[in-house]
């Protein structure tokens, strides 16, 4: 980009995106238990307290476990579904796909309230595992998008080539199809993982009073008393998201995952 006006525009947007991160990263460096910026005195204690403070540590572990299990469920639902949609002619199966997308398109409050009604009616309300299932459903759309995209990139001719060499459906799945869509499965898992880590409302309405995840704990801290640890943990979460998306970009084609043509294609 040569145009100085465009450069300035990008710089302003970049600043707008980064500003909150800079400020909370700074706030978390305060020596005393205050939320002021620029920080007064420097201390890494609040960053350390994310892992040393038992309450924050357990919230962090809860979040990581819920996210890992929930995104595994999302992938377990999305993978066979997108395979079926790709392999079979079955227009009614589109309806199942639409239901998979629905929680992500509709306002999140709806999924949350639905989950609350369901778990309360079935008598499991408050059980720690309920949030894992509800998150798994809530984030199905992410692996569904990436894996569907992955299947679309498979040239059906190479499967016919495999068949002429004697491979049956199962062998093809194992030796050709899965290796080709693995990157898309991994990115789908990664997207669901990061979003589950950060999800508040569904977690709150399912296990809000029994299991503290990081977003719930940050919200409670916001209501009932600030502590710089919440700033530190927010920074940790942002870095985690950057790390995960950075890895996806490193090992995959991020622009293509986001819907651009792949390199050299299309133009």
């Amino acid at each position, binding site marked *: 980009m040569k145009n100085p006006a465009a450069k300035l*525009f990008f710089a302003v947007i970049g600043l707008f995106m980064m500003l909150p991160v800079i400020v909370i990263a700074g706030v978390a460096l305060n020596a005393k238990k205050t*939320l002021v910026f620029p920080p007064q005195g420097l201390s890494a204690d609040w960053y350390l307290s994310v892992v040393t403070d038992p309450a924050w540590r357990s919230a962090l572990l809860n979040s990581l476990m819920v996210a890992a299990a929930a995104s595994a469920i999302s992938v*377990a639902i999305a993978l066979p579904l997108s395979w079926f949609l*790709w392999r079979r002619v079955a227009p009614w199966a589109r309806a199942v796909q639409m*239901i998979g997308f629905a929680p992500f398109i509709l*306002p999140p409050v709806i999924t949350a309230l639905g*989950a609350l009604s369901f778990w309360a009616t079935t008598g499991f309300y408050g059980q720690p595992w309920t949030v894992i299932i509800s998150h798994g459903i809530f984030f199905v759309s992410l692996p569904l998008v990436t894996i569907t995209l992955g299947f679309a990139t498979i040239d059906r001719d190479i499967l016919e080539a495999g068949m002429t060499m004697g491979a049956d459906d199962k062998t093809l799945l194992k030796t050709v199809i899965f290796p080709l869509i693995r990157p898309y499965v991994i990115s789908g898992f990664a997207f669901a993982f990061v979003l589950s880590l950060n999800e508040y409302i569904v977690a709150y309405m399912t296990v809000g009073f029994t299991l503290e995840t990081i977003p719930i704990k*940050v919200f409670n801290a916001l209501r009932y008393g600030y502590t710089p640890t*919440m700033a530190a943990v927010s920074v940790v979460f942002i870095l985690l998201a950057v790390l995960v998306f950075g890895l996806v970009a490193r090992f995959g084609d991020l622009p293509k995952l986001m819907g651009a043509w792949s390199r050299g294609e299309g133009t």
Partner: protein
Amino acid sequence: MRRNPPQKPADYLPIAFPAAMLALFFVVPFGIMVAISVFKRVQGGFYEPAFTLDNYARFLTPFFGEVLMFSLALAAIVSVVCLLIGVPFTYLLTRIGRRYQVLWLITLLAVLSLSEVIIGFAWSTLLSRTAGLSNFLVFLSIMDKPEAWTPGFGAVMTGLVYQAFPYTVLVLYPAFSRLDPSLMEAARTLGSSPLRAFWNVVLPIMRKTLLATFIIVFIFALGAYLLPQILGRPQHWTLSVLVTDQAIYQSNMPFAAAMAVFLVLSSLFLVGLSILVSEKKGIGTP
């Protein structure tokens, strides 16, 4: 391998688990919520089976009308602002080198994935008197003394735009990155300045994408449930906030469910509209 319809019962196996999971944990909960919306509330925070439209009747109160109008107006303004910034931004983004695009995409995804809690907390800090931007302006001698800019309408708007902007860009990104660059070049060789060509070539080709994106971002903004609480005053609460508030703090599940059903219907209406708009496009996004 050609696609073919499933023939043996075993062919249905792959879709059985996904369909069962989605049915049990999304369709059934949804049905229960719809049922609760016509139940009767009893004192003590519970409800009992009944068929009453009282919960829906409460929509007709001026209070509810005000919240609804505010929610819709807020979502519309946020969507317009995001498009005004996001359209030129996305256009330029898809014209820079692939490596810089990747860096921007990582940034946008990271911001998009941030919890509303964290975004709310960050902006409430950023707009606060003790730790906020105003301190910086005082430092630059632009202001006399630091001021608190939160809670307030401006703070709610800022937070919502911050949250919805990455979403807007990512929704626009596929269409813009697939736009044939030679169309713009053709416009330039035919005598249009770049700005004029953006106006009379890019935007008209993209008009359906833009309309669809407006609706999608509108729904996204309608879903914000925490930012209006954290950054605003009670008069800035939206329908989503009200649903949470009724369900958790007022323990009025039937009314919360009725509002949620209403929210679903209006969202579905808008989604249908956006699909209708984008199905007819055929140009701009191949």
